[in-house]
Structure formats: C-alpha cells, structure tokens
C-alpha cells in the first residue's frame, strides 16, 4: 500500500500544479484571485517558517520581523528608485537578503536559549523591531511606505501577483523538501530531538540552527516584499504584525508541525477560511473569535495536526482491514493469523 503512494504522488502533484497554473485564467473573479494570492503568500510563509521551526522544534514567534524587513526593504528601494512594472518582482530577492541580514544578529542572540525562553525572546525582539519601524527616520514612522503605482490592466491586475506567489510558493516547498532529505535537515531534526546529544555526535548545533534561521528569514522576507507590492503599502503595524506569527503558527499546528505537507495544508484551509469569514461578518472581531475557537478545537482534538493524525488513522484502518481479511494462498489460517496480527500491530505503532 505504501509503495502505491510512490506511483500516484508525482502525477497528483503535477495535476495540482496544472490546476494552480490555469486557475486565474478560468476563474477571473478578482475576489477569488485575491483570495488565492493571499493563500499562496501564506503557503510560502508557513513553509519558510517550518524550514526553521518545523525542523528544529524552536517555535519562532518573531518571523514578522523578516516579513516586515522584506516589505520595507523592497518598498524603500522601489520608492527611492521610482520602480514600476514587472521589474518590481526582480527586487524580491533583495527583500529576502535584507531579512536574512537581520536574521544573523537576531539568531545569534535568540538561539542561545531554548524552548519557551526562545519563544519569549523572539516575541521581545519582534516588538523592538516594530518600535524601530515606528520611530526610525528612514522608515517614515506612521506614514509607512507606499508601493509604486502599477499601471497594469485592471481586468488582469492580479495575475502577475498570482504567478509570482505561485512561483515563490513552489520554489519554497521544493527547497524545504530538499532540506528535509539532506544531511543538514537531518542534523536539524537531531537538534530538535536532543540538541546536546547531537553536539556530542559532531553536529555544530549553533551553526546549523543559525543557517536554518537565516534561510527561513530569507523566504519570509521575499514573501513580505510580494505582500507589500500586492497590498500597495507597508505600515509598521501591518507588516510588523504579531498576528502574522500567530497565523503562521496556527497553520503549521493545524496541518502538522514538523511535516512538509501539513503546514501547506493548514495554509490552504485557514487562509481562505479567514478571508471568507472576514467577508461574511462585517464585524472583523467575530472572524477572529471563530478562528480562536478553531484553534482550541485543533489543540483539543488534533494536537498533532491533520497530516500526522490522518496517517495514524490510515495505518490503523489498514491494520483493521488486514485483521479482517482472510489469509490468502496456501498458508494455513492458524499459522498466518498471528503473523498478520503482529504486523498490523507493528504498523499501528
């Protein structure tokens, strides 16, 4: 059964990609494509976050720093250089680099502590950055930064953003997958399980954690830059936004913290839902309350997230089927039964 997945996984992913590529051509509703762009932005953001947090187990609630840095970096660049048109997408890596540069000192401080202390330190550093954005001269305080006026055809205005978001999301997922299977990724997961033991086996823990943190910040910075161009403005409170981190963490925990597919699934479910709720209820707080309730339900009933839980149910279901299925072939029933039961129990473990 497990080997079957090998055969359908690649075609299924290809089909999904085709659907994603033709989507804005088929569905030209600006509301729908706006939903889709925001969703892609969060798919990339949560995958980028998971590159660090999912692999190392260090839960960062300070990634909005990188989102904001990326947004401000490309924003100030576009504003000073009077950029407009397709060239703006070429500046996105610079947003990533700015975020990565910020991540080095941030990581060197925050990564000295672990677990809960790390979470608290990331929140504290986040607020320092938000304050800086409000108060520094070059970030222009409350005014923030405005995006260049893009003279694209209003009918297909969303399409360049959609495809940029899709490319960023796909590349981020591919990168994340590559990290997971690499030696670097294995070292990160060893750090997650027992950091001191990993150090005693030759893993340079600080270096690996910092590298993952910086890579993760780069992706988040790129995403922040794209968001800035799409929304058209960066204010200290909208790009250095604490709910960004809470949303990303919620997506990851809903889908399955530490997995590759889980956070993506979490973003695909939560972001459209969040936007639909915001549209449905003119009272913005109601949608927030509903999301909060959802979060509680997830923690109560799916503490490990959708993907790991679904895998458990699948193996349990398979084991149940195996137990009920009469043994095939010439094997006598009484000889085969205990073996399959044992195999089923193993699979269920």
């Amino acid at each position, binding site marked *: 059964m497990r080997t079957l997945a090998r055969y359908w996984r690649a075609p299924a992913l290809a089909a999904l990609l085709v659907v994603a590529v033709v989507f804005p051509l088929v569905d030209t509703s600006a509301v729908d494509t706006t939903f889709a762009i925001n969703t892609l932005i969060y798919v990339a953001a949560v995958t980028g976050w998971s590159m660090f947090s999912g692999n190392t187990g260090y839960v960062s609630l300070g990634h909005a720093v990188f989102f904001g840095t990326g947004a401000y970096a490309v924003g100030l660049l576009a504003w000073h250089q009077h950029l407009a048109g397709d060239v703006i997408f070429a500046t996105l890596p610079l947003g990533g680099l700015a975020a990565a540069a910020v991540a080095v000192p941030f990581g060197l401080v925050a990564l000295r502590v672990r677990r809960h202390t790390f979470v608290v330190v990331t929140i504290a550093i986040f607020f320092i950055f938000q304050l800086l954005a409000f108060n520094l001269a070059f970030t222009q305080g409350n005014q923030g930064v405005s995006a260049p006026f893009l003279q694209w055809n209003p009918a297909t205005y969303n399409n360049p953003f959609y495809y940029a978001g899709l490319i960023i999301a796909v590349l981020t997922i591919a990168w994340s997958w590559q990290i997971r*299977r*690499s*030696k670097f990724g*294995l070292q990160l*997961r060893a750090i997650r399980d027992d950091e*001191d033991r990993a150090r*005693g*086996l*030759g893993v340079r823990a600080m270096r690996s954690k910092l590298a993952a943190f910086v890579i993760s910040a780069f992706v988040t910075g790129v995403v922040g830059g794209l968001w800035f161009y799409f929304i058209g403005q960066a204010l200290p409170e909208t790009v250095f936004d604490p709910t960004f981190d809470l949303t990303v963490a919620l997506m990851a925990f809903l889908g399955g913290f530490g997995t590759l597919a889980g956070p993506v699934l979490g973003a695909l479910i939560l972001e459209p839902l969040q936007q639909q709720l915001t549209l449905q209820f003119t009272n913005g707080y109601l949608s927030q309350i509903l999301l909060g309730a959802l979060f509680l339900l997830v923690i109560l009933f799916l503490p490990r997230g959708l993907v790991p839980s679904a895998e458990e149910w699948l193996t349990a279901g398979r084991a149940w089927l195996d137990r009920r299925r009469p043994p095939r072939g010439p094997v006598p029933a009484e000889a085969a039964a205990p073996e399959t039961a044992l195999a089923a129990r193993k699979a269920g473990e």
Partner: protein
Amino acid sequence: MTALLRTEAVSKAFGGVHALADCTVEVDAGSIAGLIGPNGSGKTTLFNVISGYERVDGGRVYLRDADITNAPPDRVFRSGIGRTFQLTRVFPRLTVMENMIVAAGHHDRLPNGSGRGLSGLRSRLARAGGPATRRRAIELLEFTGIARHADVPAGTLSYGQRKLLELSYVLIASPAIVLLDEPAGGVNPTLIGVIADRIRDLNQEGTTFLIVEHNMEFVMGLCDRVTVIDNGTPVVTGPPEVIRTDHRVLDAYLGTDDGDSDLPA
C-alpha cells in the same frame, strides 16, 4: 608508552562542591580502562569535562598530544572521542538508521579540506547518508544485533536496544577512544554479556575504552586497568586483581574511621 587520553590535574567545582580535584587519569592506547568509585565521586563529571559538556576550572585534557581542554562537544567528537550517556540518549523521532547517519555526519566528507567551499556545500545539500554510510551503519547494527530495527523510530526501542544503538552510532565515526557511562546499567544479564563481548571484539580491532560502571563483575572481567576515584580524586590505579584487594578501595566505598570520606550515596 604515552597515553592516548590524559587528564592532568583537572579540577571542577559546582558552587562550593569540588566534583573533581587534582584529577589525573591516563588511558593507554589499545586498553580497556575502568573507572569506579562511589556515587557522586566525580566519574560522570570527568566524562563531561573530557567530552566538552563541562568546562574545567583548572588542569588540561589531552588526546595523544593535542590539547582538547574546554573544546566544545562537537570538536571533541570529531577529534576521536565518542561517548555514551548514563541515561541513554538517542534521537527518539528519527529512525535507527537516521540516528546512525547523524553520527556519521562529518565522516562523509573527505579529509583533504574538501569539506569547505562549494564541494562542502554540495555534500551538505546531498541526500543524507550515501550508500557507503548506510552500508557501514547496517554492518554496525548487525554487529550489535539491532539491524532488523533499522527503519523504526528509535523511540520505540527498548532500553537495552537503545544502549546498543548508542554504542553503534558512536562507533560509526570510528573514534580512537570510546567513553562508556554505565553500559551495563539497567540492562538484563544476557544483554550485559552481549555488550561485554562487543567491547572485547572492538578492543581487539584497536578501539580504546574508558568505562564507568557499578557492576563490579563487568568491570573486573573486562578491564586491563581500573582507576578508583573518590571525592573527585583518583586514589589508586592498577590491574583488577590488585584493585579488588586494595584497602583504599574499600575505604572509598565503605568510608573510613577518620571521616574524610563522605558518601553522598
């Protein structure tokens, strides 16, 4: 004959408690050395100091001629000292094979400086655990008898199997010396025999051992030389048959009349 591993007058205090004081221990290359002493006498602290988990307050640690005093754990491991922990530590959510690959990490790279720059980057990006590493890992797992568990998460192993895994992954880096912290502790008698046999086999092939153990039968049957440590200071070193009858050992374990030996146990 120069010692493979040598601590020179190492001292370490936690607050006012002197865990190690003037601790000089030598382990000859190719030997199996034992380290015994009452609870709280500083055996594990000595291991922590050697393997880089604790910094010394004074004294030096040498591996052959290299001064490794206060080197961080990853560098100590790379320099050729592997260790296991008293409370066995494996990576529970990684498979047994992945546990092995983590420990093989720096060994995948070639020694001629190719670990740096572009080729180093490529080796880090490549799929973890090449065929050679996996072959070596399976060999070692077969050697310790847990190869059939290679693909299960290490967290599902029994305590004894984890001890064997810990021994296996320390060995994959081909360390010059292995420090074992209570390899027989909490393990059933059959498995203790297996562990002792494996240590003997590895020693025949040239691996040096330093073993902390409370199981006297295990230590006396295995070790070439035994050091008794009390209050952080070695009191006597010698072959097992001499140690067995030395009065200072009995003093260390049972206490003396003049009351200079406290037994925290």
